[in-house]
């Protein structure tokens, strides 16, 4: 692995990521404008653990949409131009790490009342100082964690 702070130009996908981001923005906009709901995925999932009458089905529907999205992309694969391919996902972390990370993410996002979608996208788009603090906090913790695991402890 190369050392030093340099941009990985071979894997950097500015246009695809910008386009994907715009799709996230469109989805977020649709949900707030039509349903009056903030698209914060961990909050939507957590609402199912504390179900309230008449407040469950839309959550299930949205999660089903997320889960079904790879199938839609696969179905549209025929039309994908050759310059545009979605890379096969790669999960580097070992099983116990994945499980531990899942638990921390579950607890942490509930205490923070939001995750990357709720604070990072919706909160920043609402110009919420609270969400800005949350986003800076989880970004900083993410940067530090990856620095420690990949450059100090060499366990990832």
């Amino acid at each position: 692995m190369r050392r030093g702070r340099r941009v990985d130009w071979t894997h950097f996908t500015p246009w695809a990521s910008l386009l994907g981001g715009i799709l996230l923005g469109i989805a977020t906009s649709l949900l707030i404008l039509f349903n009056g709901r903030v698209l914060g995925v961990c909050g939507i999932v957590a609402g199912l653990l504390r179900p309230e009458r008449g407040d469950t089905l839309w959550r299930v529907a949205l999660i089903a949409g997320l889960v079904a999205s790879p199938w839609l992309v696969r179905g549209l694969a025929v039309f994908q131009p050759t310059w545009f391919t979605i890379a096969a996902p790669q999960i580097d972390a070992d099983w116990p790490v994945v499980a531990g990370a899942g638990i921390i993410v579950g607890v942490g996002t509930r205490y923070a009342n939001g995750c990357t979608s709720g604070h990072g996208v919706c909160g920043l788009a609402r110009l919420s100082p609270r969400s800005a603090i949350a986003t800076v906090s989880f970004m900083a913790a993410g940067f530090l964690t990856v620095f420690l695991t990949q450059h100090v402890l060499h366990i990832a």
Partner: protein
Amino acid sequence: MSQPTAKPFLPHVLAFATGLVFGVGLLVAGMADPHKVLAFLNLAGPWDPSLAFVMGGAIGVAVFAFAYARKRATALLGDPIRLPTSRDITPRLILGSVAFGVGWGLAGFCPAPALVALGNGQPKAVVFVVAMLVGMAAFEWLESLSTARGTLNTSVNAVSPR
């Protein structure tokens, strides 16, 4: 203009479509791939700035929707617009976010991409989502404990579950 009770299934259809578009967005952006997310968090390695472009694109669109939503009381399908009201910056907010960031940095997953990867049939994503639900349930349990304790301390007879 809008008829809230006439077509009660419409909000659910819209929620499904929203999840679908969001998931496709994550896949197109490369964010359903933990390796790419970690490449963004790896500032000291060969850095992949893609995630910043994802956030920029998403916020750049959503900022207009929220500015418009703030001026309205009801959504286009008739339900009230529910925007977060809390403005408090608390230790819970910061410590919770830090914990989330640590988990994010360990596996490269946050909740939405994990659900997309689960749909993609990745066993590790299944493990992550189940563990995340366990973590969320643990939070609910801890909260119910502290609520119960608070109720005992103030000796209020009526417990009001949220």
